[in-house]
Each structure stands twice: as C-alpha cells, then as structure tokens.
C-alpha cells in the first residue's frame, strides 16, 4: 500500500523539548493507525453492533456509555449514543465490517484518513490534557479503555484512555497540525519528548 502523508509532518520534531532538563514528563507521538471507523447502530440494535465488533476485532466492549477497550493493535470505544469508534493498526478494517454490519443494524463510515491519532503518555499526561479539555481525566472518572467526545474550542476530539497515564486523541485531520502545535506548546512546562 502507498504510504499516507501525515498532516503533522512539518511540525513533528522528534526529540526532547521544553523544560526537559528537569525531566521528561510526557511523551507525544502520532500513532498512525491504518483504520479508523465509525460504527453506528439504529436505536435498539446496539447489542448486535457490539457483537459484530467482537466478532470482527475480538474486542469485547464493556456495557455502558463511553465504554471501551484497547489492546495495543486494536481499540474500540463508544463515543455517542449507539456510536462507536473502532481502530486498527492495519488498513482495510472497513471491508471486514462490510458484510457484518448489515443495513438493519446500522452503518459503517470509514474515517481512516479523516482523523489523526495522537498519543500522549507519561506521568503528567492528565495535567497536560486538563489544559485543553473540560473533562475529568482522573482514573476513577475516566477509566481505562473508556472513550469520551469533547472539544477544545473549534477542535473536536475523541479521547480514549489507553493506559493508566496514556491517552489517544482523535482529531479532525485538517485541525491536527494546529492541535499538535498547541499540545507541544502546552507540554513545554513539564518537558516532553516526541517519538
């Protein structure tokens, strides 16, 4: 397959930055998954859709609003009533769902190009995230695997907690560079490294 161009490219500077002499407290990276899908169930069909996700990806979504799982290569979480984001390292996940999510269950929308995945990890990840989003990042309020949709002014974001101190942020591709720059700027205080 042809390599995709990252929207972050000219602003993506691997290495240590900001106040890193006093320790690097967050690590920023672009994870570049091959597939990012949005699955939507018609009201009442959520359970079948969740089953389908399990069948295709092996990810068993916990019940409840915003529930999700992430296992490194693959991740899924609910972000809206009846709506889920499913992510895979590999390309081509949409076709795997094509026959499974039948029109009576819901729809599949491929957003693999349209969303950019940014990961923030480290002891100060919550601190830096709190600079952007008015949601509670503490572990009890935002458990492992869970997803949230929120926004930072004009930038809409879906966020999944993929580790105790790690978050994956999905933003619209056209906003990604601006958001990335802002994220780097906000991380300077705690010292950051770009992988």
């Amino acid at each position: 397959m042809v390599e995709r161009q990252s929207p972050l490219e000219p602003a993506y500077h691997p290495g240590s930055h900001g106040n890193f002499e006093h320790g690097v407290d967050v690590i920023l990276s672009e994870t570049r998954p091959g597939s990012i899908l949005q699955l939507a169930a018609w009201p009442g069909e959520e359970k079948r859709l969740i089953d389908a996700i399990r069948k295709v990806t092996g990810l068993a979504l916990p019940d409840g609003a915003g529930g999700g799982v992430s296992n490194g290569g693959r991740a899924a979480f609910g972000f809206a009533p009846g709506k889920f984001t499913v992510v895979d390292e590999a390309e081509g996940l949409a076709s795997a769902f094509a026959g499974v999510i039948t029109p009576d269950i819901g729809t599949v929308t491929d957003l693999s190009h349209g969303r950019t995945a940014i990961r923030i990890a480290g002891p100060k990840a919550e601190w830096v995230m709190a600079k952007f989003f008015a949601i509670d990042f503490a572990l009890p309020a935002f458990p492992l695997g869970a997803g949230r949709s929120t926004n930072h002014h004009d930038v809409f974001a879906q966020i999944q907690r993929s580790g105790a101190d790690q978050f994956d942020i999905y933003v619209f591709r056209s906003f990604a560079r601006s958001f990335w720059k802002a994220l780097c700027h906000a991380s300077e205080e705690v010292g950051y490294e770009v992988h």
Partner: protein
Amino acid sequence: MSSRRTETGGRIDRLRTIRFTFDGAPYTGHAGDTLASALLASGVTLFGRSFKYHRPRGLLAAGVEEPNALVTVLRGDVREPNIPATMVEIYDGLVAVSQNRSPSLAWDISALNQLGGKVLSAGFYYKTFMGPVIGPLKGTRFWMFCEHFIRRAAGLGRAGTAPDTSRYERMNAFCDVLVVGSGPAGLMAAKAAADQGARVILAELEARFGGSANWSGETIDDAPAADWAGRLVGQLEGNDNVRLLPRTTVWGYYDGNTLAALERVTDHKEVAARGEPRQRYWAIRAGTVVLATGSFERPLVFPGNDRPGVMLAHAAERYANEYAVLPGERTVVFTNNDSAYRSAVALKKAGAAVVAIVDVRSDVSSEMSRLASEADAELLAGHAVVATEGGKALTGLKVQRFDLTSGALSGDERSIHADCLAMSGGWSPTIHLASQAGARAEWDPGRQAFLPPQPTQRWIGAGAFTGSFSTAEAIAEGRAAGLQAAGGTASLAPLPVVEAVPGDPDPAPVFEIKAKGKSFVDFQHDVTAEDVRLAHREGFVSVEHLKRYTTLGMATDQGKSSNVPGLAIMAEALGKPIPEVGTTRFRPPYTAVSIGSLAAERFGDLKPERLTPMHDWHIENGATMYSAGLWYRPMIYGLAGETVEQAYVREAKATRESAGIVDVSTLGKIAVQGPDAAEFLDRVYTNMFSTLAVGKARYGLMLREDGLAFDDGTTWRLGEQDFLMTTTTANAGKVMQHLEYFLDVIWPELKVTVTSVTDEWAGAAIGGPKARAILAACVKGTAVDNAALPFMGIVHGEIASVPVMICRLSFSGEMAFEVYSGAGYGTRVWEALIEAGKPFGLVTYGLEALGTMRIEKGHVTGAEIDGRTTARDLHLDWMLSKKKPFIGSAMMDREGLIASDRLQLVGLVSLDNRPFNGGAHVVEELDEANPHGSIGHITACCYSPALGKYIALALVKGGKARHGTRAFVSDPLRNRFGPIEIVSNHFYDPDGSRMHG
C-alpha cells in the same frame, strides 16, 4: 527616611535581602515582604494619588482591598498597571512606579483639582459642559472639546502596548471539595475533608497559607497560630488527594458550581522557568465549595481620614506581626468595636507607642480597659477623631467627646501628636463569592454587617465569612463544613485549643463622625460623606443610584471596605434601617483579573488553522493564501511581478483554453447513510434525490424553515443507501447541525446517520477542454470518456496507485471533474494530476480564478445566498419540486418573499471599461455629490477574460425585468461611479455546451 523594621519577629526571611526600585529610587526588603511592607519599612508613607482630587494617599490596608497604593509594575517595556502594592511580592530587580501623578508623586500638579472641591461634587458633569445652543460649538462639539481634557486627566495607570511575551494557561480541575481561603476555618475544612478521602483543592489568594493565623498573635495548641497553620499545611501537602493552590484567588462563582480562579505562578519570580506560565486560570468544577474567605475591616468616616498614616487597625497589626514593620512610632487607635484593642496590644508588643485608644463607645468592657492598659494606651472612651493634621503624612489628630446615640460631638477639641492612626469600623464578612451566584445578602443588626445569603448552589460557609469572628468558632465551623462537604459523619481531626484575646464581635453602629472637613467614604474615587448626602438630596437614594451617581464602590477595589459605610450614611439620610437600603450587586471578578489569564492558551493563538492535505504543496509552489473561515486556500499562484488581477486572469484563461486544477478539499462533505437516506434527502433538498441513480450526482438546494435559501452543493449517490453530500465551505458546520437537528428532533423515525467526512477526502477539481485527456493519461482502472463518465456521473479508479473517486461536474463551466481521494493521499494524487497535465498546459488556479469563472457562469455562492435571498431571487426556482414537501416549502411563498421589487440576481457589465468594486451600489440616476436611490448592490466582480470586460453579479430590485437596461454603479466609498448595463447573470456559455462537452 528612617527604617521602621523591627528587630525581631515577622514572617520575613531576614537572611535574604532583595533589591528593587520604586519611582526610580533603589530600596531593599526581605523575602516575604510585599512592596507595601518593604517600602513602609523603608519609611515610605506616600504611595499614590487619588482619582479625582489627586490627594496624597498612603496605605489603608495590607491585602487585596487596598484602594490607595496602586502601582505599575514594569517588566522591560511590559507594563502592569493598577496593582495594589500590598499584593506585589518583591523580587530582585522589581521595578514599580507610582501612578496618576505628574510630575511626581510628591508634587502632583492635578492636586489643584481639590480647589474645585464643592463644584466637583457628585453629578457635576451632568450639569454642565452642554455648551452653546447655536454656533460652531453647538451639538456635541463643546462637550467633546472639554471631554478631551477630562479624559486625559482621568484614568489611573497607563497600559502598555509592548507585546507581553509571557504565557498564560488554563487548567480544568474537578474536585469533591473546593476550599476557598486558608485561614483557620479554611485550613481546618480542608483537613477534615481530606481526612474523609475526598478530592480537595485549597485555594488561598495570599502567598502564604494561614490567613489571619499568620498575624493574629494568637496561640493554638500551645503554639503560635502561624506554626499551627504551618503544621496543618504540612499534613495537607503530604496527601495525594489534596491540591494546594497558593497565590490563587477564586474570583468567580458561576452556575453549576463552576468556579474560576487565578493562580499567580511567576509574578513573584525574577524569571519564569521554561514553559512556565505567568498566570494560570483554573476552571474548577466542585462537588461542594467551602467558603472560608474571612472578613474585611471597615474604615471609619471622619474628616481627614484619608491622610497617609491613617490605616485599618488590623493592617497596622499585620504590618507589625507578619512583616515586622511598624507603621508608626506614635500610634492612636480609633474604633467602634473590640477587635482594635488586640491590634493596639500587638502594636505595643512590636515596639510602637500606642498613645491612645479612641473608642466611640462610652462604656467599654473591663476586659478592653485591661487591654488598653496592657497596650499602655490612654483610653478615650466616648470620644471620636474629628480631624487629622499633617501634609502628605500624618502628624497629629484631634479628638472630641462623642455621644453614641445622637452622634453629637461636644467639648473641646484635643490635639494628639501621632504618625499613625489605626482605625476600625467593624468587620464585613467576605461574602462576594456567595453573592455572585445571585442570592441577596442579609443584614445582621448585631454584627452590623451583611452576612452570607442562603446558598443557591452547593456551598457551605465557615469562619469569619459567616460572621463567626473568633478563631475557635472559625476552626469548629471549618471542621464541620469540611466534613459535611466530604459527605462524612465523624471527624478524625480533633479540635485544637485556642488561646485568643477576648472581645465582643459586635461593634457600635457608628460609621461616620460628622465634623467639618472632607470625610472620605470611597478613598480611590474620592467619594465623600457629603457626596452621599448630595445624592440623597437629588433623589439618587437607591443604593444602586448612589453608586452610579457618586461612583462609590466602582473603583479598582470595588468598594470592599467602603460600601457598607457608604450605604449606612445613605440609610441615615433616608431615616431608614440599613436592610431596607440594601447593598449593591456583587459581580465577578472578586478581584481584578488579567485579560491575558482569561484568554489563557488562546493568547496569541485565537483560532486553529484548518489546512487541506495539499496545503504545504500550495505554499511551496508560490500560492498566496487566503483565509476563509478557519481554512486557508490558495488565492492565486502568482508569477514573479504579476498583480493579483494578472494572475487570476492568466489562470482563468489557461483553464478555459486548456485546463486548470484547483484544490476543493475545503468543501463540506457529509456522509448520509442508511435505509432512509434517500427519503431524508428528499425532505432536506428542494429537489428530488430518491430518483437519483447509484453512481450519479445531482446539484441540490436547501432552504431554511422560513423559506429562504440556505445552502447548495452536489450530492453523490455512492450506493443504494449511501450518499456523499457536499456543502459550501462556509456552511459545512451549519448544514451538519441542520441535518442532525431534523434527524434527532423532528424525524427520529428515519434510519439515517450523518457524519462529517470533510477531512476524509482530498478533492481536486480539474476543468477545461483538456481536462478529460489529462485524466485519461493518469487514471487507471476506469475509462473517463463520455460513455463511462457522462455529465454528473461517478467512476472509481486509481491514480498513482491510489484509489480515487471521480465525478464529472462543473463549477467553472468547462468540461470538469472532481477527483476525490483519501486525504492522506491528497498530495500524491494532486502531484500526479499535475504531472499528467504538464504536456497539456495544465495550470493550478486559486480562489480568484475560481470566482472569476463562476461569475462568468453566473453561479451563486455565499455572497448571493446571504441569508436574505430566496430561490426565486437567485433564479433557482426551477429546483423547487412541486411533487413533495421539503424544508421551507410551506413558508417560501409568503407575500414578502415573492414581492416583485425584491432584490434579484443579475449580471452587470461595465460600460466605461473600468473595474468594479465588491459592495458598490447600483442606481438609476447618478448623483455623485449626493448619492441616493440605490436599487441594489454588487455581490461579486472581476475582469472576465472570456468576455474581455469588467463584469459583476449583483442583486438588483426587480432585476430580471431590467435585463438590457442601463444604469450606474455608485460607489461613493471608493469614489467610483460609471455607466453599466444590466444583463442576465449567465454571461458565459449560457446553454452549457462547454461543460456538457
């Protein structure tokens, strides 16, 4: 100037000496000093000038309520005006200057204003400066002439214009319990809540936690109160659930228990660390708030009460105990309550001579008499201060007998020599935050103070905030509040034993001593007791009128110390009790907050930039970018030396002659999917979509509910249940919300998902006679000829090994195609198309050429679909289906929307061969001197290479009937007038033969 620093005591670090300047002169102080305490220690007593009369002023207070000692802090060229010296922590290299004086603080020419005295009373401006009724100065001229000087005289500090390079940041915080204030009450509340395992934030506006414990001189659990506080802070620091925020003022109490706080992170530092913000704006969503914000001491109102050297009693005590500075050597205490006796003792202990305690009450308790003797002070019970003496510093004062019930003065005036007068007019709980949320404060006749209102949100009060003025009570209330806020039942923290100076918390109801001379109520704004009475005489008797007529409480201190005395004087004038007069409304912020902190991370970064996948390519290839909403789009790809007009004419011409390519990735794109997608589109668009075949696209028009035109674009049917809708760039978000609203609220039965896929697809539109040949040269996997790809057809293929979707549609009026690929491949496909186009003379073109070609074709955009036009106005009525209802169909034929004199879309041709300007108007008769009779305006204009003329689109009254007639363009703003012909908006290739090929 002599040093007033005491030998011992205070919470300053005597080992660390700090150097700074004030008005250019060098001074030193110690770590832990404020600018106020350090200057006072150096013998400075003159700190500022008042707003109106420019009277010399010294320190009134030691905290945030300071009205007089305002300074400007300089960091290089960056100025920070109007900061109370009491709130500036000194650091090495601090540069502070005084304000509102010229040429110097000591010799201020505007002090002459005082001579205006009685004329400059409240309401002065409303009664004069109207100027002559006739002649050249009539109307507003005379006032504006006077105003010029008035404005220059007004104002406090000077704002800078040099860019502030500091960073400001926002933090969103969540907690179970937010404790505001860290006095004995707040500390105990935080401890009790934390012990229950609650998530606690403790915010204290001062640098040091402890509040009054830092200077009260009391003993708690056998230790100085300050040490007890320090111990508690230590315990809280060790608790993971607790966030301690020093130098953090909670300034706003908003709905939903959302509080706003400002942390001054580096204002006290010489330099900030890398990435460290100067200030941090905390938006705190709290489960429950404990308000332990303490209280303010009130001044007394008497003649000369503003002379430097007259200060609040607790402030004098605080300077002595916390900062080891004696505010004066010979001090007189003037009070209407017991609390000042403690101050007297403290000042005595610190080494000052307390010459006298003047108490308006004649029967003073034996305990207080004992304290007076402990302070070695003469007790003048039943007396009042009636005058002060001195120039820019207090040298003495006069007292007279005072009768508490009548307020009458009697007997001889007695002069007392003193350089400090410590006054106490009682205490007002700091109820600001509780009141902001909306409830009205309640007057307590015992405390002679407004107490907090009933909670309208989830907060609990504790300590002096509730009117409980003893430390033991404060601690007990704090513990109870913390416990309750955390939802606990039994406290783990034992109540400490407090040893405090006794005292009755209730003052005598005396606010003013009426004697001859100016008695100040609002110090900063120079509002006197007489001004309050004048307002009364003129009928401005409501407290809110009093405030607005006299400006009482409208200064930078927002009347923290002056409001209650002011309205007490009004109540007396009215002969009404204070509760009937009420208090003015409390508003955020509690203390002024920097605008930088509020803009926070958006300072210098107002809006994100939205970039198309090909953005970097455009920049590298010489595009001049145009900002369209948040997007950036190429305007022209200019060659060296080209003007904008030359560039777009070249680009448009080349497109019509061979081929051109333009980035259309910014078009809004919405995936409309589901079994009811077609039905939904039929309802949303004015025309039919259910009849559209898979693999075909159709141009669609949407109306608003009120029948006016809303948006247009093409929608592609990719599958039976799968549509790709495109919208205009500007309306993408609005259309999305419109669709979502109908699906969620109006037609929930429809099974349709709508998803923004704008960013999923990169789009390139390639048009011109050679466009098909170029595509044929680079597309794999599909044919692009007329049979495979007819007008409005869609095919799937590959370019440069990348899957693409191609739709044959045209905005330029040429044979044209839109090529969509995954955004990550956008540049690759774009480059491949350009490579393939080279042999055919393909040019890249920008928005200007795009606009030119659409004007030539007479297509509409946002300039015409401007929210005021109908489909008919734009000659799109052919798209209004009669076979089905659609959004807007029921409303679109109302009388006002079909009137014949509505503005309708037409074309204009310049008859004098000169360019038009957007926004020029159209008239039937030209009158350059006195333009009138507009019949419409130009929405878009250009030089048309295809026609060789300057042309425009315009909205003109009854426009269609005017085709072929002459009129004039009238553009007085740019002085462009000239003859025009009104024509059809379809200038170029009206029958569409070029695009149909």
